């Protein structure tokens, strides 16, 4: 089995709060892995450790066969990230953000192709902060794709979007999934996780409770009518 990410027994604390408590996980090449859990469960911290944005207190993380602490620069050339916030300068235009981020990478995907695929052309000369949430997220996704990454990290990509914008964003994400990109995302929308993710990791209080295909997780409840929402309530919220 070809794993693009292997995390082994990682822990991360903020003061006295243990955000991640001994998580081990492998991500297969080309899969869409969803991470679910309540607010404060440790989803974002786990994702950010995989992205190289935070260092774990203990444990190891290997991304694309490289240790994240020793080969951070090489890894960053090959991953794309989208954070919960759009996280861009206040007065930057869409076109400028694309040019700026493109300059950071050695390998570049055709920017015009990304613009067309994500429908950003009418918005190129607009300030990112003046766009609606959906278009800001598309801009963020475009920046995550600018280096034609092997792995795309999406931290709650559809949070705060209306149903139409969510649907459209998933259309975009699925186009890149079809190219064989590995996608790792966190979400609070169980319908999205069930529909789009190959496997789902459930995190509760910093621990990995389960990681399996949606069908198996649902089957584990022993109820034929159960949904992933029931799985969430059982594993991520229940005591």
């Amino acid at each position, binding site marked *: 089995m070809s794993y693009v990410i292997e995390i082994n027994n990682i822990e991360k604390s903020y003061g006295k709060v243990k955000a991640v408590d001994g998580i081990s996980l492998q991500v297969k090449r080309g899969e869409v892995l969803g991470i679910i859990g309540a607010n404060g469960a440790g989803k974002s911290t786990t994702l950010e450790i995989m992205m190289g*944005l935070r260092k774990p207190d203990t444990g190891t993380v290997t991304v694309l066969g490289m240790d994240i602490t020793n080969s951070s*620069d090489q890894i960053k050339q090959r991953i794309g990230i989208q*954070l919960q916030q759009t996280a861009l*300068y*206040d007065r930057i235009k869409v076109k*400028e953000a694309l*040019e700026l981020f493109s*300059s*950071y990478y050695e390998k570049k995907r055709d920017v015009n192709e990304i613009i067309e695929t994500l429908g950003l052309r009418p918005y190129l000369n607009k300030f990112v902060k003046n766009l609606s949430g959906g278009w800001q997220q598309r801009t963020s996704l475009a920046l995550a794709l600018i280096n034609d990454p092997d792995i795309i990290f999406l931290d709650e990509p559809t949070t705060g979007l209306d149903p139409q914008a969510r649907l459209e964003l998933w259309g975009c994400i699925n186009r890149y999934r079809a190219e064989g990109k590995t996608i790792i995302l966190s979400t609070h929308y169980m319908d999205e996780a069930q529909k789009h993710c190959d496997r789902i990791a459930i995190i509760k209080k910093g621990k990995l409770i389960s990681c399996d295909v949606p069908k198996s997780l649902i089957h584990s409840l022993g109820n034929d009518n159960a949904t992933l929402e029931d799985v969430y309530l059982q594993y991520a919220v229940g005591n």
Partner: protein
Amino acid sequence: MQSILTHTKMEMKLFFRETLALLFTFIVPAVSFVVFAIMFQGSSYDGGLDYFQAYIPSMIAIIIFTTAFFSMGLQIVIDREKGVYKRLKGTPLNQRAIFTATIIKGFFAIYIGAIEILLIAKFGFSTNLTSHAFQFFLALTFCSVTFFSIGFIVSSLAKRMNTALGIAMIAMYPMMFLSGATIPLEAFPEILQNVSYIVPLTYVVNVLRDGWNGTLFTADALVDIGILTGVLIVSAIIGMKYFKWTD
């Protein structure tokens, strides 16, 4: 290298889109300079300086302060709060490059602001500019670096934009009025003149005046330069200990 250049160019482009930065860097000092020149250009100041010898350095000192506190200290907090640096951390651009771009932006703003004041003095009031350009440039660069380090303290102490703005606004009044940059210190009662000794911009005003008037390399300038060097060292130590690009 290409990424550092592009990032620096973008930082400068974004600087020119910040209304507050433009107001404090280019408009307030220039307008103050013109208004004071109209009112006081026949007066003489501390040490027998004429208005232009005293106030060209003073207005440029204000530009150094506003750039360091607003365009750097405050702006870093705003960008950090928005998650910009966290997002950049996920790219191959390293933090040294971001720091370099921020410093270049600061120098760029100060030099442009200084040139603006010089052009107003030269063409608006037909005054002779300094014949000690090198000393003035040296003083300007040294004072800028010192205040950049204070700007980084602001962004080290303030986690939120409102806090940084509060610090900058509170610092603005003593810096503007108790440093000799706008109102001559001799006009104040003794107690306020004594307060000026703890206002770092006082020493910037003095060192810039020394540079402008060709006395930078004399014993008279040593105390001011020494104090600013101390401020620079202490600020750099505090900044290195507490400054963070991301939360």
